[in-house]
């Protein structure tokens, strides 16, 4: 078949399948290593005998061989069954779905913020190397990667909540005195707008500012740095020199010729940025008591409730695989050369 973009995209999608399988297998193996005997946990009756524990173990399928258990795990997974949380008493899948919107809202806004600040910063730094904006870019990006999110989050709380009093209580997603808008998407900003409830939309935006800024600060650094580096490389290339020699307007050279080419390597680093952000998510949620999946998994981890931890890890890994897949697909559609070089 003639190599084409569609072919490339199809191949890339197919290549994600064994990866997802690998992720599921790795999660399964990790959770078999987890300490604690689920059978002993499920036998609630105090003083349960060895016979009863053995029976529960049999019912849970824990007395079978590892491959058999893996198949059972896969079948359950196919039914969307991630097990039961011991703390909440609900199914893990339901718990995760309930909390996922909170994490998504935070991460997406942080990502948009990071792009909105990081990319222009990198571009302007590249246009005037050695200028004030270039130094700002270097300082911000070095400080950004060197500051742990839990420290920058606390600093922002201190300055904007305690000292200036601009930010609301850094706890949760909504002013505690407001009622949450009717649950539609779970994204409070969207739900608030849909319900026409401007108060709760405003409140949820206010609550979001500090945590998303904290995360953006961390994600912005690699973005600005990559953008600057790749823009400098492109601006020094032959075709830009040609365009300049031909007397094309500066704006056109930068926006049309340079920027489009310089964005490509930045897009490939997005995968790394997402890995940072999904990890940082857990820490930011802890600092701001944000009721997302990271905080949920942490609580479960500390109370030795392992099914939610397992579900969380699987969900995060699957999200990350899908994000990387999307990055590659976007790349293949932006760069007309993809698929032609083979």
């Amino acid at each position, binding site marked *: 078949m003639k190599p084409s973009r569609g072919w490339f995209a199809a191949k890339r999608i197919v290549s994600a399948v064994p990866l997802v399988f690998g992720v599921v297998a790795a999660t399964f193996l990790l959770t078999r*290593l987890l300490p604690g005997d689920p059978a002993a946990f499920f036998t609630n009756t105090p003083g349960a005998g060895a016979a009863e524990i053995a029976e529960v173990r049999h019912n849970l399928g824990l007395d079978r061989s590892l491959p058999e258990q893996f198949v059972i795990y896969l079948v359950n997974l196919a039914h969307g069954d991630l097990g039961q949380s011991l703390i909440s008493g609900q199914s893990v899948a339901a718990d995760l779905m309930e909390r996922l919107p909170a994490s998504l809202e935070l991460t997406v806004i942080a990502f948009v913020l990071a792009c909105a600040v990081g990319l222009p910063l990198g571009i302007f730094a590249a246009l005037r190397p050695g200028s004030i904006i270039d130094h700002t870019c270097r300082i911000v990006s070095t400080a950004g990667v060197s500051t742990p999110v839990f420290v920058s989050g606390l600093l922002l709380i201190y300055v904007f909540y305690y000292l200036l009093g601009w930010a609301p209580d850094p706890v949760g997603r909504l002013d505690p005195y407001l009622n949450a808008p009717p649950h539609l998407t779970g994204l409070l900003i969207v739900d608030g707008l849909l319900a026409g409830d401007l108060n709760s939309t405003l409140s949820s935006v206010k609550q979001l500012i500090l945590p998303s800024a904290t995360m953006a600060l961390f994600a912005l650094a690699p973005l600005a740095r990559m953008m600057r580096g790749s823009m400098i490389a492109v601006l020094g290339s032959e075709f830009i020199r040609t365009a300049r020699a031909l007397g094309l307007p500066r704006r056109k050279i930068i926006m049309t010729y340079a920027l489009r080419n310089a964005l490509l390597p930045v897009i490939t680093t997005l995968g790394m940025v997402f890995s940072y952000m999904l*990890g940082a998510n857990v820490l930011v949620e*802890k600092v701001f008591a944000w009721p997302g999946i990271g905080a949920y*998994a942490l609580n479960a981890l500390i109370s030795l409730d392992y099914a939610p931890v397992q579900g969380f890890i699987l969900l995060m890994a699957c999200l990350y*695989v899908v994000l990387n897949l999307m990055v590659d697909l976007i790349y293949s559609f932006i760069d007309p050369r993809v698929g032609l070089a083979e």
Partner: protein
Amino acid sequence: MTASTRYTRHSFYVLTENSLTLVSVVLFSIILLLAIIGPTIAPYDPLTTNTASSLMPPSALHWFGTDQLGRDICSRVLVATRLDLVIAASAVSISFVIGSLLGAICGYYEGFLDWLIGRGIDVMMAFPLFVLAMALVAALGNTVVNIVYATAIINIPFYFRLARAEINVRRHSGYVEAARLSGNSNARIILTYLLPNALPTLVVQISINMGWAILNAAGLSFIGLGVRPPTAEWGIMVAQGAVLVIGGQWWVALFPGLALMIVVFCFNLLGDALRDIVDPRRRT
């Protein structure tokens, strides 16, 4: 000119060529010194509690103030330097040794083993790394040693990929063929001919990874994994101060946080400087 003066001259040139390199080397030496002598120069015992003087802001008596239990934060930050550096350094050495050896073997022999390990590494990289570290600590058990292992495991892919690529492109080069013809075993070729050539790239990675490893380990102890109180460690100290920030008691969380920032900053600068020396084309 003797070899040693030439070496000194070259080092001097490297250090002064970029002022940031000099700064990072000086900073690194200071941090290393503090890690060694920290416990002896700490003005107070890091574990002695004194509830009479709890939560005092920074003063001449307690430079960084005191925490909830009246412990001197300055002493605790100083003493913690060693633990934080040891955790990161042991994790990075483990991942360096395992990652580069595996990478070298895979790059040299190729074949099924290479395919298998390569796919395993792909699966590891399919997890957000901090989340994978959390999962590993949960699975292996909640101890400091397991923080080291978890941090080591999530960093292995970087060394593996670098070493594999570096060895793979060189494995048919002239000097390797020559070494093979003169009767060197495969193991000897990998260890004495190929790995030393890949070393500069790997060393840069080590320096960049150190900062990463420190952040990762501190992040894990911040969320309550690994290091247990009352041990002095930066991540857990920030966690202890976190609840006080809302009430305006900033010093409990700030100083250990600042220590983390400075150390990670230093390793990042050092990594950039080393990369400039090893590969001037990638200078940004």
